[in-house]
């Protein structure tokens, strides 16, 4: 049977851990609220952007051509993987990395390069057989993504795409924020921008102040920037959500462990007391 002192020490250590997980949970909860607000605030812009782009595309159909839009081959991919910088967020990073590995397996015959956003993804794939062409570390870690920073990333991706003619497609993997308890790993084609399905929707005849092709050409990069910004915001919100949930269950588990240990400790103590009483009583009887 375990030593009383050992169990006490164990309880104290678990209590310390519990305090840490509890604090982390509360920090994440506060950050989550802000991240969530930003996701919500960014939605109208993205929605309107998609709408305007769709209308333009519907009007002009396939007559628009743009380096960001035109299909190339299907051989050479760039994979943008958005993970967190920090761990202790449950399966958050593991799910992303798993999705990336599945993607790599499914496209094993293609040449794939990786652009890693977030330390966890970078560290994992640095030890694997894959060419990491770029990395952004420390971006998602501080819990707040500035629009400027997202622009840098988006422009970097577009520059790679337009400069390297052999690069056929860019995919992005990130966690979409569904709710605090739920994240969904999304694999999306970022470039070339997928042509919007032009269903039989009512087309409005616009007055174009500039030629539609010019407006379209200006709109496309902004669309890509918005997509990247949104993905980063969603990812940050998901990260905090995942960490909050993970730390909440860790705190609960620690509580259970403490209860269990306390029970064992009391039992041992009681056993020791009982033993002493028996000794005293049997000692007295022997007199």
């Amino acid at each position, binding site marked *: 049977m375990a030593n009383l002192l050992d169990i006490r020490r164990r309880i104290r250590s678990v209590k310390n851990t519990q305090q840490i997980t509890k604090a982390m949970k509360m920090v994440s909860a506060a950050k989550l609220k802000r991240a969530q607000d*930003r996701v919500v*605030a*960014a939605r*109208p*812009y*993205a929605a*309107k*952007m998609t709408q*305007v782009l769709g209308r*333009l595309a519907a009007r002009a159909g396939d007559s628009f051509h743009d380096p960001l839009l035109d299909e190339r081959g299907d051989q050479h991919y760039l994979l943008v993987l958005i993970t967190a910088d920090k761990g202790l967020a449950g399966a958050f990073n593991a799910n992303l990395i798993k999705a990336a590995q599945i993607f790599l397996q499914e496209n094993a015959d293609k040449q794939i390069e990786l652009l890693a956003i977030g330390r966890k993804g970078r560290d994992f794939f640095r030890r694997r057989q894959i060419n990491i062409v770029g990395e952004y570390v420390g971006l998602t870690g501080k819990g707040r993504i500035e*629009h400027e920073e997202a622009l840098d990333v988006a422009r970097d991706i577009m520059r790679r795409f337009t400069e390297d003619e052999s690069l056929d497609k860019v995919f992005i993997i990130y966690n979409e924020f569904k709710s605090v308890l739920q994240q969904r790993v999304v694999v999306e084609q970022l470039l070339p921008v997928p042509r919007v399905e032009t269903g039989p929707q009512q087309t*409005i*005849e*616009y*007055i*174009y*102040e*500039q030629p*539609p092709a*010019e*407006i379209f050409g*200006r*709109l496309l990069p*902004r669309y890509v*920037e*918005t997509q990247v*910004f949104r993905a980063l915001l969603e990812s940050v919100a998901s990260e905090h959500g995942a960490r909050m949930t993970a730390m909440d269950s860790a705190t609960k588990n620690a509580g259970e462990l403490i209860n269990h240990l306390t029970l064992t400790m009391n039992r041992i103590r009681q056993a020791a007391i009982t033993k002493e009483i028996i000794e005293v009583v049997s000692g007295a009887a022997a007199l």
Partner: protein
Amino acid sequence: MAEQIQLEVITPERRVVSERVDAVTVPALGGEIGVLPGHAPLISQIQTGILSYTQGGATHRLHVSGGFVEVSDDQVTVLADVAELPEEIDAARARRAREQAEKILSSFSGDQEEFARAMAKLERSLVRIQLAEEFEAIRR
């Protein structure tokens, strides 16, 4: 006039204005465009400048920079890269930005991109300063 237009000014980060207004003036790339209820559908790029709208006789002005405007069904949607209300503008920062931009422009190095960036910065700072000064004048 009972008819009004729905004005939405949205940036990638937030919704700046969402109001029912009587008239809007937008700094479009080809010059200012005035929009009244019943305006034909329109799409245009916008440039750095002042967007103003009237609402029940009062005129409101704000700084917008870069982006697009879409008009349809008595709805004006401005997708701006930057949009600031006068009270949000940091006048001191704008003045510093103007000085910096002027310095770069006066010692022009021949770099076209740098020149364009400095020009854009100068324009933005000038609009900001103008709005900030107007705002201070009203408050006094």
